[in-house]
């Protein structure tokens, strides 16, 4: 069985402050039915209500996968992305009608990871990066997908979103954590020259592993550090969402019980 710890935050970037735009990144996490799901979405800069689209997408995916993890996990990746994207698009269409804006105004990227009973299910549209922690060491799990140019990527509302929606599923094995990052945070957490994740990813994970650190304490620290350092390296919003998976050894509990029984009879 697994025990989980999550921490996430979003920080408004300099260009958004200057343009009087809200933070358009969103993070969400949900734990129900023994399923943990965390998600992150980065609203498109030029779209006036993209933070609403990001909010809808992250909330939906977190809640939906906590309810239907088993059913979704059984499907093949093609079917999974069709179903999830259809549901997200319908929510966005409904919202765009309520707000009387075009669907495009609710554009965002989407990254998520969901875990249950030693299995994971993950998805990614657009830029940003998903890293996994394998035996506590960060490894690239899903890379950003940009166009040729720096200010191009794919969104949940893109015509070709289905072609660019990447689904991953499998057994956790030695994976004991994940980090989702927006493209703003990616500038600090991924070294493009070395093509590798930076030390800060390990530091974040050590915070999660320290049992003395509550979720609130880590989120406060993440927020302060992102605001102080990450926003110096980009003018974009920055967000991260972290997950620690503690694999609790079930055999050891069984052995513990057995030892107690032996002790009683001895």
């Amino acid at each position, binding site marked *: 069985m697994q025990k989980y710890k999550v921490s996430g935050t979003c920080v408004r970037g300099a260009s958004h402050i200057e343009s009087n735009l809200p933070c358009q990144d969103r993070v969400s996490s949900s734990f129900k039915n023994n399923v943990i799901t965390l998600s992150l979405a980065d609203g498109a800069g030029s779209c006036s209500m993209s933070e609403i689209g990001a909010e809808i997408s992250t909330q939906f995916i977190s809640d939906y996968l906590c309810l239907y993890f088993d059913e979704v996990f059984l499907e093949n990746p093609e079917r999974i992305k069709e179903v999830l994207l259809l549901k997200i698009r319908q929510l966005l269409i409904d919202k765009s009608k309520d707000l009387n804006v075009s669907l495009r105004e609710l554009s965002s990227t989407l990254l998520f990871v969901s875990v249950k009973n030693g299995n994971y299910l993950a998805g990614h549209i657009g830029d940003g990066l998903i890293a996994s922690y394998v035996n506590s060491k960060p490894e690239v799990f899903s890379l950003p997908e940009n166009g040729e*140019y720096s200010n191009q990527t794919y969104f949940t509302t893109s015509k070709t979103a289905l072609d660019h929606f990447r689904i991953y599923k499998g057994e956790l094995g030695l994976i004991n954590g994940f980090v989702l990052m927006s493209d703003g945070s990616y*500038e600090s957490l991924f*070294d493009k020259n070395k093509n590798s994740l930076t030390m800060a990813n390990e530091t974040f994970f050590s915070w999660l592993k320290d049992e003395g650190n509550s979720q609130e304490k880590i989120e406060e620290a993440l927020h302060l550090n992102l605001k102080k350092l990450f926003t110096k390296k980009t003018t974009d919003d920055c967000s991260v969402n972290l997950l620690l998976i503690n694999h609790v050894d079930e055999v050891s509990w069984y052995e513990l019980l057995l030892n107690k029984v032996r002790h009683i009879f001895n």
Partner: protein
Amino acid sequence: MSNLVIYDQELADNPTARVPICLVLDVSGSMAGGPINELNKGIEAFMTEILEDDIAQDAADISVVTFGTVVEIALKFDNIEKQVVPKFSAGGTTPMGAAVLKSLEILEERKKEYKEAGVDYFQPWLVLMTDGVPTDMQIIPSATKKTNNLINEKKLTLYSIGVGNNADMRQLSQFDLSKPPLKLDGLKFKEFFEWLSQSVSVVSNSTPGDGTLKMDLNDLRGWTTLEL
């Protein structure tokens, strides 16, 4: 105060995404006198404005191709702080087609250099300024075909600017069939380059979803005479 602290050395120091810009400038004999003097002042102001903008100075990657007596790369792509812009002098004819082809060639080479170095980049810009009529008409069709193909594929942003009453606006319009060329108001080179540096700043701040730069017609009023 939380003891959970990240240090700068734990983070990446990635290069800023570049905006490659090639200024293709007419320095033919007809530019002699006031026009070439104002062009020189305008370029100087452009470089100064870029250097004064924290983000644009890291993002802007500038080269200059001139056409007059010869077509030449007057300023190679380099770190803007190391670049010394020569003073241009007017002379010769107007080999505009060859100059445009040369600029496309160096923009393409620059993109290859970015890719090899792992540097992100924005869509390249080509700024064409002329006060006359091309004198290499045999090359113009291949040059206009190339620019339009690149524009249609969203691989190039082109600004065509006519200077003075003798600029062949019809010919200039052939380089970008998606939007009309603009005409400089008198010799307002400085105002044009101020606008251009601000546009570089806007693009270098843009994020996914912003798309390509849309010209704000009100912003153009300071330097163009076109009816808007």
